[in-house]
């Protein structure tokens, strides 16, 4: 494989790596959002249960 093709492949590989990492962070962000909401809902439910 010529140097030029190699360098194009490496270039896009590195960029793809960054994009994948970006996606991973986005996923972690969504996870945190969901768990925060769950915690809120859970604590409200427990408040009601305690009232009963």
């Amino acid at each position, binding site marked *: 494989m010529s140097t030029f093709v190699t360098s194009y492949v490496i270039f896009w590989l*590195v960029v793809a790596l960054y994009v994948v990492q*970006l996606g991973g962070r986005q996923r972690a962000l969504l996870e945190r959002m969901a768990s925060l909401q769950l915690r809120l809902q859970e604590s409200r439910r427990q408040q009601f249960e305690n009232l009963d």
Partner: protein
Amino acid sequence: MQNKFVSILCGGLTRAAVTCPLIAALGLAMVFAPTEETMGQVQRILYIHVASAWLGLLGFAVMGGCGLAYLLRRNLAWDHWSRAANEIGWLCSSLTLLTGSLWAHSAWGTWWTWEPRLTTMFVLWALYSSCLIVRSSMDEPHLSARIAGALAILGLLDLPLVIMATRWFRGIHPVSPEMEPMMQVTLLLNVIAFTVFFGLLFARRHSQLVSESLLHQLEIHVLADHPPVVNEVRTIPPLSLETF
């Protein structure tokens, strides 16, 4: 309904606006641009090399500008821009070093030479890296913003001096060689397409950073109002995506 349609349309348009020039630029660079006589195919590295070098420099200017704006205004919104520029700029300058090294190996027969632009690019990369290290080593957002902002401004002041210092050693890097019109068009298209593409990545990363910081504030807020239940039997299990 109307809104949703518009947003889908906008998303599609953005994607098209990024993808089409990128594909066209890649096609031109890899196939249609004329092959250079002395270096041959290897010269095609030029198109991605120059484009990413330009973005590396642009990223530093954006990072320094936003860092300055943060120091003047003390508004974290500026730091988010600066941070996103830091990451994208670091990526681009790394890519420049990488592609340049590969090109130098086949054109000059060496992976690295101490040539003005290479040295300048290396110092630029080191400055980006030090800003990244600072940001990752500190939790307090305002503190890391302050330090990284000041570092970015110092780096911006430093760059012209680095360029001057390194230029006075003799170099073999071509300054601006004569190019065929087709090559010029290809290079221009590549620079534009890459700017748009990395600009999109930049915007994505920025919005991610904004929501990360909002979420962080919200979490602190919620934790204060609703401390995690410890005495109850039923505590909330740590959540992962697999739960859904």
